[in-house]
C-alpha cells in the first residue's frame, strides 16, 4: 500500500531493554504501519536522522531504565532545528527512576515535547487506535 504511515521506533540513551521494542515492532507492522526500528541504545541524533531520511510520520521513543528524563532533553528542539519540529512524538516505558505519581511524569514529558506519554504496562492495542487517530487514518 502506498498510504502506509511510517514510524521510527527506538529505545533512547544507554538503555538496552529490547523485549518491548521487539513486540512494538511486530505489533505496529501487523497493524499496517511501515516500521523503521532503530533498536536499543539509540541517540537523539539517530532518531532525528532516521525521521528525516524515511520521511517519518511519527517517532516512538521508549525508555525503560530510568534515565529517560535526562536522555530526551533537547530532542524536540533538535527536531525543530532539522525542520521537522511538528512531527508526532510518543514516549513510553519506565520514564523516571523509581515510581512517581503518573500525572507528574506525564506532565514532565509533555513539557519535554512529547504528544503522548505512556506508562509501562501499556499494551500495543492500547496505543494503536490513538495513533491512527492522531495520524488521521
Amino acid at each position, binding site marked *: 500500500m502506498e498510504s502506509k504511515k511510517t514510524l521510527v521506533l527506538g529505545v533512547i540513551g544507554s538503555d538496552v531493554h529490547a523485549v518491548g521494542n521487539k513486540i512494538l515492532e511486530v505489533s505496529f507492522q501487523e497493524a499496517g504501519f511501515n516500521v523503521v526500528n532503530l533498536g536499543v*541504545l539509540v541517540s537523539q541524533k539517530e532518531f532525528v536522522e532516521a525521521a528525516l531520511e524515511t520521511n517519518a510520520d511519527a517517532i516512538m521513543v521508549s525508555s525503560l531504565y530510568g534515565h529517560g528524563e535526562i536522555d530526551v532533553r533537547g530532542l524536540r528542539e533538535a527536531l525543530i532545528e532539522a525542520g521537522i519540529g511538528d512531527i508526532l512524538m510518543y514516549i513510553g516505558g519506565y520514564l523516571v527512576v523509581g515510581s512517581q505519581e503518573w500525572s507528574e511524569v506525564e506532565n514532565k514529558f509533555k513539557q519535554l515535547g512529547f504528544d503522548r506519554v505512556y506508562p509501562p504496562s501499556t499494551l500495543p492495542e492500547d496505543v494503536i487506535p490513538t495513533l491512527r487517530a492522531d495520524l488521521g487514518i
Partner: protein
Amino acid sequence: MAEITHNKLDWQELKGEREEVLAGWVTGQEVDLEDAFRFHKALPPHLNFGVRMAQAKEEGVTLAQPRAGVADLASHTKLLKYLQDEGGADLLPTTIDSYTRQNRYEEAEKGLEESVREGRSLLNGFPAVNHGVANCRRLVESLSVPVQVRHGTPDARLLAEITLAAGFTAYEGGGISYNIPYAKRVPLEKSLRDWQYVDRLVGYYEEQGITINREPFGPLTGTLVAPSVSHSVAIIEGILAAKQGVKSLTLGYGQCGNLMQDVAALQTLTILAEEYLEAEGLTDVEITTVFHQWMGGFPNDEARAFGVISLGGAAAALGKATKVIVKTPHEALGVPTKEVNAQGIRTTKQVLNMLKDQVYPENEQLALEREIIIQETRQILDKTLELGKGDWALGTVRAFEAGVIDVPFAPSSFNAGRTMPARDNEGAVRFLSWGNLPFNKEIQDFHRAKLAERGKAEKRTPSFQMVIDDIYAIGQGKLIGRPR
C-alpha cells in the same frame, strides 16, 4: 587486533594497557595495588564474598542477595545498611548505573551532581568510577556482610580496577553475558578480551592470596532463556575466567518458572561446569551457583509480585542454589525504595528457611529434564570448541557468528537472534525454533513434540503470537500465555 585466544594474559604485558585504562577517569589515579592488597588482607573473612559462598555451599543453605544502587555515597551506604539490618540480606550488591556501564563517566557525573542537588537519585545505580577508591572503601568498611559489584558493562576494566582496589570482594559479569544482552555494537572479540583483563586482574589478586569471587551474569536477557543456552554461556565464561586465574566462581541461572526444569537446571549447572573445567585441567576452582528470581516482566500488583518472588525462593531452595538474587514487589513499578527492597528479601528468606531442610525428590521426569539440559548444553559447547579448534574464546566468537550460541531477544548485532523460545504445556521453556543451535534430531523432536502438545491443548498452531503471550504471561498473573 590479534586473533583472540583463551590463554592466560601476561601480567607484565598488561602494564601499558592498565595505564591507559586507569587514565580513563580521574579516579583511576587512586588505584594502588599494594595498598589494595593490604586493605583486602586486613578485611575479616566474614566480609569476603567467596569465603561466605563456600561456607554456604558446605552447609547446604541458600543465601539471599538483593540488587540495589543509588547515585550518592551517603544514600547508597544507608540503603545497603538498611537491606542488611532490616532486610536480613546475607550478601550485598552495589548496582552500577547505566551510564557507567557504557563508560560514559561524564554523563554519570552530571547525573550524580543533579541527584545530589535534587535530593533524589536520577541515576539507576551507583557510579562507582566517579566516586573513586577512597569513597568506595568507606562503603565497604561500613558493612558487616560481603558486597559485590553488579552491573552490565561490556568494558568493565576501569570499574574493576577501582572497585577491587576499594575492597569489593566479588564482581559480576563476563565477556558474553555483559555484552550480548547489554550492548548493540560491541564485538565479542573486544568484550571477551576486556573481560580477560578483568579476570586476569582478579587472578593477580588471587596470586596474592586474596579471593575475589567472579560471577558470570546467568539470566542474560531474562526473557525465556532456556537452561542450555544460559548454561553454555555460564560455563564458557567460567572457563575463560579460570584460565586467567579466577578461583572462586559463581555460575548463574534465571528462573524459567517450571519448578522441575528450574531444579534440573540448577543441578546440571554444577555437574556440567565441573566436567568442562576439568577437561581444561582447571580443577582448583570453587564452583557455587546463583539462582535469579524471575527476570522477565513482573505483575504490577505487589501482592502478585510477592507470589512470583516466593516461587523463585522455593525453586532456589529446592534446587539448592548457593545464593538467590531477590526481586522486589515493585519490580514492575520502578527502582524500589529500600523498604520495598527489604520486603522482597524477607519474603524470600522466609521461604528459604522453611524449605532449607527439604529436598526436591529424585524422580524420572527430573532425570529426563536433566538429561535434556545436559545433552543440549554439550551439543552447544562441543560445537563451540570445535569451531574454536580447541580455543574457547575463539570458539565463542565463531559460535555466535554461526548462531550456535544464540540468546533470545538480545539487542546485540553479534547475536544471530534466530531462535524462538516458548513454553510447553507444563510451562517449561522450550524451542519453537532453535535457529542454528546444533541440536541433534532427538532433541529437535523433543522440542517439536513438546510444543505440538501445547498447541493441541490450546487449539492453535505455535507461532510468534505464542511467544508474545508467554512474555506477558507472568505479568498478567499466569505462567503460560494461553489464548483467552
